[in-house]
């Protein structure tokens, strides 16, 4: 709910009323001002606390919105548990803080009401403070309800994602913990070439002579070790093999997804390009129109000049005649004056 700040209007109203009622009752006004000063300070103290609490509540709401967004993400791999838990912790602290602040505000209000007068104004003040406190409490209550809902949603999502992870990767966590020893040819001794090799090739194909006694390699032989060990080894091997299948398939799918996104990007770039060229079409049309104007103007000017030239060249005889007439008049004037 947007909080409108109409303090200025209020102040203007108060000023106008006091100026209206100031003339007949100066002394009363002084007393009233003093009273207002004290009560005003306590009121402003109360309003300060209330505004502080209101601000805290709104910031907590913002954080809660962020948390809701994070918790709603149902992605399998991009979870951010650290951030979510941090945010949850911060919000919990904020709510506890707000609770304490509201409790202190309430006790303050009760104190004020015990001190305050029983006049009509005091009663209104008391009612107003009670309402404000109720409002803040209800806001805090709604925030904590939303918080609870978000936490429930988060636990639900976590459970779902865990189910899905189990569905896709059929390994249990224990098998994943020991990849090196599960590898068939785990050979911690160095040098495959050189001195080690001749002895190896002496042995038969299926039983390389590992001096380390790699347990699982031996387990893979068929009937020597006993069925149970063999099956355990097989079980581990199976899971790891399937994991590798999964990794292979996953890497394929990620690669293809990246190709898909690249193609989408390319499509966007193409549309941008088309847009830019379309914008430039306008400019080109303007240039075209301007150039046509220039052509017509220059053509018209040329015509005029030709006309002028033609008139000049054709008018020469007339000009001679006019000059002749002028000279005649000139001579007449000279003769008349002289």
């Amino acid at each position, binding site marked *: 709910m947007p909080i409108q700040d109409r303090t200025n209007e209020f102040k203007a109203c108060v000023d106008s009323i006091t100026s209206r009622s100031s003339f007949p009752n100066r002394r009363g006004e002084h007393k009233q001002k003093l009273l207002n000063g004290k009560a005003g300070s306590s009121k402003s103290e109360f309003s300060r606390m209330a505004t502080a609490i209101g601000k805290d509540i709104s910031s907590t709401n913002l954080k809660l919105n962020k948390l809701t967004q994070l918790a709603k993400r149902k992605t399998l791999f991009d979870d951010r548990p650290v951030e979510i838990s941090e945010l949850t912790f911060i919000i919990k602290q904020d709510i506890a803080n707000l609770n304490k602040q509201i409790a202190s505000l309430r006790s303050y209000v009760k104190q004020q009401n015990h001190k305050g007068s029983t006049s009509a104004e005091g009663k209104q003040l008391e009612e107003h403070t009670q309402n404000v406190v109720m409002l803040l409490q209800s806001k805090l209550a709604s925030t904590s309800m939303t918080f609870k809902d978000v936490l429930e949603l988060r636990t639900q999502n976590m459970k779902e994602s865990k189910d899905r992870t189990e569905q896709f990767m059929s390994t249990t966590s224990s098998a994943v913990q020991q990849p090196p020893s599960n590898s068939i040819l785990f050979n911690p001794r160095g040098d495959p*070439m050189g001195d080690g090799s001749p002895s190896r090739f002496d042995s038969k*194909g299926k039983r390389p002579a590992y001096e380390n006694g790699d347990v699982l390699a031996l387990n893979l032989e068929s009937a020597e070790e006993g069925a149970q060990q063999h099956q355990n080894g097989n079980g581990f091997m199976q899971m790891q093999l399937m994991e590798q299948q999964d990794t292979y398939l996953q890497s394929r799918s990620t690669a293809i997804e990246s*190709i898909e996104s*690249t*193609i989408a990007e390319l499509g966007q770039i193409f549309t941008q390009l088309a847009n830019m060229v379309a914008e430039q079409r306008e400019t080109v049309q*303007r240039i075209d129109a301007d150039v046509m104007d220039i052509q017509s103007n220059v053509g018209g*000017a040329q015509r005029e000049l030709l006309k002028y030239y033609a008139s000049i060249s054709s*008018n020469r005889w007339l000009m001679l005649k006019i000059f002749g007439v002028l000279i005649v008049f000139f001579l007449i004037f000279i003769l008349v004056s002289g």
Partner: protein
Amino acid sequence: MKIFSISVILAPSQGSSTTLASASDLSSFSFYQKGSVGEFMTFFSKTVAERTQPGQRQSVQENNYTAHAYNRGGPEQLAGVIICDDEYPVRPAFSLLTKLLDDFASKVPQSSFSNPSAILFPEINTFITKYQDPSQADTIMRVQQELDETKIILHKTIEGVLQRGEKLDNLVDRSQQLSAQSKMFYKTAKKQNSCCVIM
């Protein structure tokens, strides 16, 4: 990113396996090491192929070599093993193996499997030389590369279009100025014509 050797191995689920075709690129080893390295590669490939279940893919790390094995199973019971260094990306290696095995199965009839020395599959050599560069082997990688190149070209095109836009704006201003000037020219010429009709 080097491939050291590729081999196609007949890997029945019981019994030993036999190498049907193989090619190796041991140019990075010194002359005296080549022999033993080659033997090691063969042995390694055979062992890994034997240890791979049909229809499974596997990667094994050994010092600084990685072997990727793909046992295709199927009626021919073929398995492909590629030994390369750590840098070679995994997925194209497996797609290379798949391609190799399909090629092999189509070219070489199953009857000649019992006689490994008689099998002629020279394409395996082309495989190893051509696919030292993984993007050649894997269509996905190649598509991605081409897309990236196209994106770069498009970015340059857009920059060109921006410059074109600037020049067009320039042109518009100049043509507007020219138009104004030519108008003035026309008016002056007209004025001259109409004004001095005295003579």
